[in-house]
């Protein structure tokens, strides 16, 4: 066979090309990811970094000259500033470092709690503990014990949190990360490193572990977890999510509602929501008695105009329901990236998991599940997501990782989730 023949044959090899929708969805996901990266970059502009360095130096100078006690050799604790306050006398150092060729102020937190407010001043600052890195334009409080991150709560803006070299989590306003009491995540991380350390001697690095176990779980893991977890979501979970959405809408319109109302409502219907009629309070079985009806009569209620992120979520949710996963992923990615509403973000992340799992994108689905469990610990769908992720780990042979997840699922309110989790535990035991 001559060279030309070989080349000609090689050009007939099958190739993978995305559909138009798939390519568009990928484009949107890519730009959303890049947008997050840009937010991170914007925080560290060189001028702001220079200003921060100057401010830090000034603070250090005044603190040093006014303080009678000399600092220890390895830890110079600097006075707090409006950007950084310490309610309980936290132990921390501040210094300037170079990141991507730019000076950034780094706060090394050893213990105690700090309040950081960089959103208004655009102060380029990041907080580091032994096991975590926090950065972003936001106001947040952070607590560490024994050099390790214990909790972080974001009041406003966005904060990127990297813990134990895991993929970053982006926290929005009102969101928190707390070191799990059950040590679930720690157990998972430790077990994962144990498993990989013993089974695979030729480790290349942590980044690659994200990509492991994709093809097999594509075939079996997601299919099973999809069967186990998501059908129920069409019924019970939807109702739960719609109640949340309804609550959000009503709150936005400043309509006092009886909180015991759990009547399932359809999600936003973009066209209908803009009509005055649909802006009326949700019809309740127990109408609120203390509502001032005379005021209502004189002052018509403001229409709960859905935000663009609500509309994006609604479009994504509907697309997933009708099986258009590419469109669903596109819209949900927009909702997650743009919204400041924790509930909406939880809903969007949940349906993104469903869309990824159903479209067979196991790697991303797995990552999305891990993120969901870390960020939305108290969410009612936590047990279901944990069980889905547990089944993926079972398919990958990572039973040590799967066990705590199934244990979480086995206490879920839903019988189907409990049954599935129980079956998972039995599978592991065998």
């Amino acid at each position, binding site marked *: 066979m001559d060279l030309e023949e070989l080349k000609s044959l*090689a050009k007939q*090899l099958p190739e993978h090309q995305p559909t138009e929708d798939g390519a568009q969805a990928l484009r949107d996901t890519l730009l959303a990811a890049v947008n997050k990266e840009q937010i991170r970059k914007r925080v560290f502009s060189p001028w702001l970094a220079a200003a921060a360095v100057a401010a830090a130096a000034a603070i250090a100078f005044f603190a040093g000259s006014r303080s009678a006690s000399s600092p220890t050799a390895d830890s110079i604790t600097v006075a707090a500033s409006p950007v950084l306050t310490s309610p309980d006398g936290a132990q921390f150092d501040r210094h300037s470092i170079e990141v991507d060729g730019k000076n950034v102020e780094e706060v090394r937190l050893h213990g105690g709690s700090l309040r950081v407010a960089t959103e208004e001043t655009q102060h380029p600052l990041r907080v580091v503990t032994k096991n975590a890195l926090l950065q972003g334009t936001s106001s947040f409080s952070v607590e560490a014990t024994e050099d390790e991150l214990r909790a972080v709560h974001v009041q406003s803006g966005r904060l990127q949190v990297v813990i134990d070299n895991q993929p970053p989590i982006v926290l929005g306003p009102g969101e928190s990360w707390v070191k799990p009491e059950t040590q679930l995540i720690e157990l998972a991380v430790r077990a994962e490193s144990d498993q990989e350390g013993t089974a695979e001697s030729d480790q290349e690095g942590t980044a690659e572990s994200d990509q*492991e176990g994709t093809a097999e779980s594509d075939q079996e893991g997601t299919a099973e977890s999809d069967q186990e977890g998501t059908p129920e979501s069409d019924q019970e979970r939807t109702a739960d999510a719609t109640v949340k959405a309804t609550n959000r809408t009503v709150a936005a319109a400043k309509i006092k509602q009886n909180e015991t109302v759990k009547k399932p409502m359809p999600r936003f219907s973009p066209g209908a929501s803009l009509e005055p009629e649909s802006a009326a309070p949700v019809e309740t079985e127990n109408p609120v008695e203390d509502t001032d009806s005379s005021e209502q009569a004189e002052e018509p209620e403001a229409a709960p105009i859905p935000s663009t992120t609500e509309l994006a979520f609604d479009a994504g949710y509907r697309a997933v329901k009708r099986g258009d996963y590419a469109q669903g992923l596109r819209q949900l990615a927009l909702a997650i990236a743009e919204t400041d509403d924790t509930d909406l973000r939880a809903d969007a992340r949940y349906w993104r998991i469903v869309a990824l799992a159903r479209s067979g994108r196991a790697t991303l689905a797995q990552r999305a599940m891990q993120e969901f469990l870390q960020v939305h610990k108290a969410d009612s769908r936590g047990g279901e997501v944990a069980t889905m992720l547990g089944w993926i780990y079972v398919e990958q042979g990572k039973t040590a990782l799967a066990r705590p997840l199934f244990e979480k699922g086995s206490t879920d309110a839903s019988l189907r989730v409990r049954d599935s989790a129980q079956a998972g535990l039995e599978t592991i035991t065998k």
Partner: protein
Amino acid sequence: MRAPGKLLAFRRPAEPPTPLSDEALLAACAVGEQAALGTIYDRHHRPLFRFISRIACGPGSDVEDLVQCTFIEVWKSASRFHGKGTVRSWIFGIGANVSRHYIRSEVRRRFAMDDLSERPQRDVARPDDNVATAQMVDKLSAALERLTHDQRVAFVLCDIEDMSGVDAARAIGVRQGTLWRRLHDARKRLRNDLEAGVR
């Protein structure tokens, strides 16, 4: 209020704007212009899909992830493009590196690799006169998977994507001599496998 019957001065339609070069788009990416990345994606995603699907030998969903990772790396590394080769070859080089990391972990996981069963099956019903060619393509596909990653990248870049040796060597960051050796080895092994009828 406009006077009735007044005509606007005749204007020649403006020339359509000249599309920006890939290099200009990359420069725009380097200063954070997201739209530029969108345009680069539009121009190059199809060749990149083709390239990665041939060197990664994985199912479609993984190819999508690899393409996405590649473009994210393009965005992050845009400022490091110095214009020594074409943007396309530079993107392919990044794609080859991203795929290399992916393949290493995949190989570890599937070290008892049953590549024949993993490979997507082609349609059974084909015209008779195409059967022989199709069989050869199948054989070549299997043989390609047996090459080392470096040999496969060299072969796909030079012999399938028709990239020049200079560009290909630059794209994957090796000397030309190294590239030619890899390409030579790849061609030799593929020929041997095809002629021996190994599957």
